[in-house]
């Protein structure tokens, strides 16, 4: 029993660390798709946010002696801002230019790693952007003394976890309990009806895409701070995994949380299964666990797509003349 508890104590913070960026980026994708714009550029936006955020952290580290958590907070904000700006290109292409949203997103996905590696190699002569990496919170004072919960949630944690919980809660409320949220959702379901009631479709869709950009940009920084002490010009498919989370979660915030937990758990199992007694005996290659979220998403798609919960107008440029 105590051994099992030990494993849980060991694994839980790792799962949470993976789950936070997944859930946040998937929530961003939710905003974009609910407003009617498919955003498969999340991967690229994460790379861009991660790159700019980590570069900033590196320079703040060198120039100042701010407390590490403040530096992390600044890095997250800068990353979010970078994602916000970068996603503007996708918004402009898909909303104003009525482009194919997959094509413009593909362009962003190719552009971000190219420019990140190009700039890093030009400045540092290496694709790596190295930071001190000292952003783990070992334990939160007082709160970590609460039995079980204290150890699970308030030791070996990251600032981004608490920030992520707040952002997730606030944005979920915005989407379902405010006028703006209602407008966003209406633009993805029936933009013509929304337009006839005086909603500015273009503006709302911009808001949706830019929120997704900010969340993905922040997610990129979270990814680097939680898993590495350097940025390599990639977020190893996290952006696409977040898209799978969105689909697996059937475009619903609470289900997105479950999906993110499941996907994060699979990731953790893939890298630590040799330390988990039950899985040690099965001896499956790590790739099986890494593949599982994608396979599960395909299966879900195959079985529910006929009554899919996806926003009806997602992916279609808004055309006033088309009814």
């Amino acid at each position: 029993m105590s051994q099992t508890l030990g494993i849980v104590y060991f694994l839980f913070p790792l799962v949470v660390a993976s789950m936070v960026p997944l859930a946040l980026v998937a929530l961003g994708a939710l905003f974009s798709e609910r407003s009617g714009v498919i955003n498969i550029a999340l991967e690229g936006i994460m790379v861009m946010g991660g790159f700019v955020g980590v570069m900033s952290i590196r320079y703040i580290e060198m120039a100042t002696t701010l407390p590490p958590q403040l530096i992390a907070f600044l890095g997250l904000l800068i990353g979010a801002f970078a994602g916000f700006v970068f996603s503007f290109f996708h918004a402009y292409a898909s909303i104003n230019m009525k482009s194919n949203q997959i094509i413009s997103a593909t362009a962003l996905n190719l552009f971000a790693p190219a420019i990140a590696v190009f700039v890093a190699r030009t400045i540092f002569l290496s694709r790596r952007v190295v930071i001190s990496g000292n952003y783990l919170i070992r334990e939160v004072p007082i709160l970590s003394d609460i039995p079980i919960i204290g150890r699970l949630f308030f030791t070996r944690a990251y600032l981004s976890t608490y920030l992520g919980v707040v952002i997730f809660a606030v944005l979920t409320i915005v989407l379902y309990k405010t006028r703006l949220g209602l407008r966003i959702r209406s633009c993805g379901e029936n933009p013509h009806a929304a337009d006839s009631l005086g909603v500015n479709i273009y503006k709302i869709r911009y808001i949706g895409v830019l929120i997704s950009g900010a969340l993905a940009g922040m997610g990129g920084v979270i990814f680097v701070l939680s898993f590495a002490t350097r940025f390599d010009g990639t977020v190893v498919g996290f952006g696409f995994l977040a898209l799978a989370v969105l689909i697996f979660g059937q475009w619903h915030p609470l289900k997105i949380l479950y999906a993110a937990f499941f996907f994060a758990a699979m990731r953790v199992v893939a890298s630590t299964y040799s330390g988990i007694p039950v899985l040690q005996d099965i001896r499956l290659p790590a790739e099986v666990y890494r593949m599982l979220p994608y396979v599960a998403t395909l299966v879900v798609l195959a079985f529910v797509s006929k009554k899919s919960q996806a926003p009806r107008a997602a992916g279609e440029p808004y055309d006033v003349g088309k009814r």
Partner: protein
Amino acid sequence: MKFPWGGKRARGNGDGGGRIVQGALQKVAHRPASISAFSSILAIVSGLLVGFVIMLIVNPGDAVPGFLTILFGWLSEGSRSVGDMLYFGVPIVLTGLSVAFAFRTGLFNIGATGQLTMGAFTAVYIGVNWGFLGAFHWIVAVLGGMIAGAVWGSIAGLLKAFRNVHEVVSSIMLNYIAMYMNTMLIVQLIYNRQYARARSPLPSAHIPTWFLRDIFPGSSVNIGIFIAIGLTILLHIILNRTVFGYELKSVGFNRDAAKYAGMNAKRNIVLSMTISGALAGIAGAIMFLVAGRHLEPVNQLMQEGFTGIAIALLGLSAPIGVFMAGIFYGALEQGGYYLQLYDFMPEIIDIIIAVIIYFSAFSLFIQTYVAGYLRRKLGAEVELQQGTEIK
């Protein structure tokens, strides 16, 4: 006034030089194909311009020679660099054809990278193990890659046809499944522990070079270029000269109308994705059935599949256009190879390609609005001229 922007009336008056320019513009405004070609060229120019500006910012002194190297580097070592340009171009032509073929059926094959990965693994597996095939070894290996790619593509097609799953979404999942499967299978089946990569295919599995070695001495070009040319012609014939191609395009234009006309839309969707996957699979086989290039268990998507999207767009999804765009990409890639002489990182090529894709996404806008603008403008001018004539 029947044709307010028609050629004859406009030519009847006005001065000589303006008349010719106006006539040319009218032709452009009239023919959608030239408008789309115009938008392709605009996208390429924009991409190159952005690349040039970035080079100016990074290193103003070397920006001009560096930029010229990107454009004309493929000429710098004569037949050797021309051969390498073709070598770099071939896989991209094939992935471009793969994406373009699906486009014509109204399908967006973003999964070329996964199909290419499966094709590459299968080809290398056969190349490593089936030495008993002798002279047929490389042919079987390429065919194996083709079949693996076809199977992988057909999954997305089946899901689309029978379960209404959007092919973009399923292809993204299939890309990552292929990536992890590739890593797993390399380590399980054809691993070279010493170098932490897949074993080398036997020489009998290498794509032959035939007489190309004599024409382009020192370059890596092989008969993959003939395979690419052959497939380009084949696809051109299928799409433009056969009932099957006509059906595919009809399904692409309007699935319901095609169904109403008695075509089997589901079958055509599955077939289109299968053929598209087969092309990407061949690309994977040709990329890795060469000396000195190895599959690695690194869990990275192969970018060639995504570059294929750019090439398909630039080539206007027409096989011959795709071929030219693919070779153009080979030239850029070859230029990027020489670029390091000037202290520029070769990633500038990827930046240029990304910008080109971004602007080619605008093609629809450019086509409708530029054409509309030209027509409006020319039409107004013609009316104006007619007005003065009456006076």
